[in-house]
């Protein structure tokens, strides 16, 4: 298999510098002032790729799902609240118990320094059989059933943004690898 063509597109061209550790406002039609994250910021918020992100804002006094809806929501003064990636089909998840897995960052210092070096996101994954074949889904689907949460809309990072958000049934073409083995009789 070849590595995906579409996924790592963001990585090549050199240009002006901005602090990748800060979210910045982007202009997305219909969502002026949306805050957009970068790959570095994404990594800052996770212990390792696949870990639930910490909550990047303070307590706002509202239920998480009042802003983090299935389609996300523009919140005045704050930016765009990304959609909920956990779909209705997520089995055990209960959308209203977000803090079971996502915690606030109330403190910047560490209790004790750590040498933990977690898995980083692999932007080259998403293998495809040939140049125009749809890439396979390079991560587990569980708890990520709402593909559009990360791959479409104002909150989607450009490296992984879909070119065809209107086709909502993503898994019609993009399958998830259930095994690393190849077929053998």
């Amino acid at each position, binding site marked *: 298999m070849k590595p995906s063509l579409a996924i790592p597109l963001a990585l090549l061209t050199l*240009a*002006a510098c*901005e602090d*990748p550790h800060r979210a910045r406002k982007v202009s997305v039609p219909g969502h002026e002032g949306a805050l957009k994250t970068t790959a570095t910021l994404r990594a800052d918020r996770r212990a390792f790729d696949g*870990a639930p992100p*910490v909550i990047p804002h303070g307590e706002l006094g509202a239920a998480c799902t009042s802003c983090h809806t299935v389609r996300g929501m523009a919140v005045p003064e704050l930016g765009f609240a990304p959609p909920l990636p956990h779909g209705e089909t997520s089995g055990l998840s209960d959308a209203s*118990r977000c803090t*079971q897995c996502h*915690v606030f960052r109330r403190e910047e210092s560490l209790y004790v320094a750590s040498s933990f070096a977690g898995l980083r996101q692999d932007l*080259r994954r998403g293998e495809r059989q040939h140049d125009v074949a749809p890439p396979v889904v390079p991560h587990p689907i569980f708890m990520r059933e709402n593909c559009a949460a990360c791959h479409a809309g104002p909150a989607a990072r450009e490296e992984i943004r879909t070119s065809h958000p209107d086709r909502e049934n993503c898994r019609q073409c993009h399958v998830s690898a259930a095994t690393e083995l190849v077929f053998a009789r």
Partner: protein
Amino acid sequence: MWNSDPDRRRFLKTLGAGAACVALSPADRAEAARLLAAGAFESADAALAWHKAPCRYCGTGCGVEVGVREGQVVSVRGDEKAPVNKGLLCVKGYHLPGMLYGEDRLRHPQLRRNGKLERISWDEAFDLIAKEFGGALEEHGPESVAVYGSGQWTIFDGYAALKWVKGGMRSNNLDPNARLCMASAVMGFMTQFESDEPMGCYDDFELADDFVLWGNNMAEMHPVLFSRILEHKRENPNVRIVDLATRRTPTSNYADLYVEFRPGTDLAIANGILHLLLKKGTIDRKFVRENVVFKRGIEDLDTIGYGCEGDQAEQYTFKDQAQASSLEELEEFLADYTPERVSEISGVPKAHIDALARIYGDLGRGTVSLWCMGVNQHVRGTWMNNLINDLHLITGKISRPGSNPLSLTGQPSACGTAREVGTLSNRLPADMLVTVDEHRAKTEDIWGLEPGTIPAKPGYHAVDMFRALSRGDIKAMWIQTTNPWVSLPNLHRFERKPGDGRFVVVSDIYPTPTTDVADLILPSAAWVEREGMFGNTERRTQHWDKLVEPPGEAKEDAWQIVEVARRMGMEHLFPWATEEDGDWHEPMFEEYRRFTLGVGKDLASYEQLRKARGLRWPVVEGKETRYRYAAGHDPYVKKKEGVHFYKAKKNGEKAAFWLRPYHPPAEVPDAEYPFWLCTGRVLEHWHTGSMTRRVKELHQAMPEAYVEVNRADAVELGVQDGQVVRVVGRRGSIDLPARIDGRGATPRGSLFIPFFDESVLVNELTLDAMDNISKEPDYKKSAVRLELVSS
């Protein structure tokens, strides 16, 4: 990482081919270039291997897949094939890898000489332990040595300790920290069914209609199991949750009925429910007639006492005496527990007591009772366990899919190691007791020891063990995988004085207040740094392989014990090649397994467990058991239908219903100390925080302990949210920030403090009162006052 040139060229080519298609922002481009230069992204070809393991923390026993690359744990994900959690974890589980990599991991054996720690070799360490323990045995006898273990011990660790202490040193001074957490549940099951551990299992989370939580904040303490309940409720709107509690918790938010009661009055409430069940006739008389006998024990408060400092003798040795009772006597006994009187005692409205009676009494609906520390850490914890089991016995709601009492556990192998291996001062494997001649004989036979090797007198239970250490009756003690100088109640009582003549060894993975007072510190291998097996709440035994090397010279606890036993001339106890990474785990487990076969506690084979995502015992002919004592489920039940409590030999193979009265707590608020103090955990931290505080995300989310104060009390005392206040009790005082209406909310006159923070030792305030039967301390009910701290 970018080690391979062809890899890199291919990647750059790929990037070039696609670059023209997408409009990139300048920031993305800049970041991309920087990351590329730094080699920050993973190579798809780098070998990342995934392996199964149970989570390291609580008794739920979630399955995780551990991502290992180049000898390091780099990732963890919920195991979708794990029947316990079906892919979901809690925030502690998702951040497991960080637990291994705190920079202050203990890496080498260290001996304290003249107040300073010096690095020594393993050989020196083992020789010293052998000398000190051997010397104490010779000079003062087997009662002068002790091992204090853990519900976090693997089955291997616990079995090695049991064999060394009871079969080698001929002492019963072996007790685990599990004595502080689930001993009351053990004694509940043992006194009623003569066999420990639940009859039900997690399948009930999708089968029950009503869930009654007795003092159990599942949303924080067993979050994945609570998620299963909530998911079931979402799909079945008729499902109800009742939260009986002494403070509002995140669990209360999901309850259909929240029942707030005064601390300790759950005894009265349970009796009040029984009163109404009998009065309304909503009991299963046929079930009771066929399967239940009635009993009562000593009920006089003065005779029983509370076993705490200043209350009774230095050693608390109360023994209950059973006498036969009957359903008729029960009716008389319960006459006092009218809704009016129970309401008066507990503060619970009569309507709520009635609602509870209707839930248990609706014989058409499945009812599961759940409890953990609220019931177990209770001066009458065994009685409370008895009463909850009684509610299920009287209604026949037991050993039935969707209807069971299910006691939850707080440690990953409280069941598998402490309870099943039997690392308690009065126990032997598979429900056996040191006080029973045949049980000792069977153990000696399997171990190939001379008859009479194991003493018949039980050793010290946990609290008494530390009292004996303070007195000097115990000369040498080895503590593994636990942190008693944070977790014991009434901590001041156990302070060590320099030059006290005792020898204390501590095996752990990080420095703690317990290693601070140790004479010898040994570095242990943690979790997937060694092979292991845990047994969870639902009788599921789970195996994992060693996946990475431990840091420095750290070694697994079982191996440490075996090496010391060899040096004490007890190599006959461990006749397997126990060199590092030798294949001794399988023969050790298969020897232990012999205790379990044929007695209804049958464990699966080592080979089967290595492959499975855990199996629930009894495992007979390779098949696990979901419901014990139930026809059609339990292979030991030969009946075509119904239940058979075949383990309860003393009662004609019937379960015992115990009549248990209400007794007040040992210490109650008064004019001088007007507040209740309850201690416990929070979602982010596990137990004394020695592991979870070293995980960045968990520490940053919950960096310090706090005291939860009721808003009206705060207003009255002039306490602001976040203000540092002083909590003063009879035994000590601590300063910490107040939190008003945080994630929990205490009722007026009541405080809550979590115990994970070693810099604010809430156990300097708690009372060392304990349950009369299980000897488990009550961490939930002390009296304190709140003071402002002048700045």
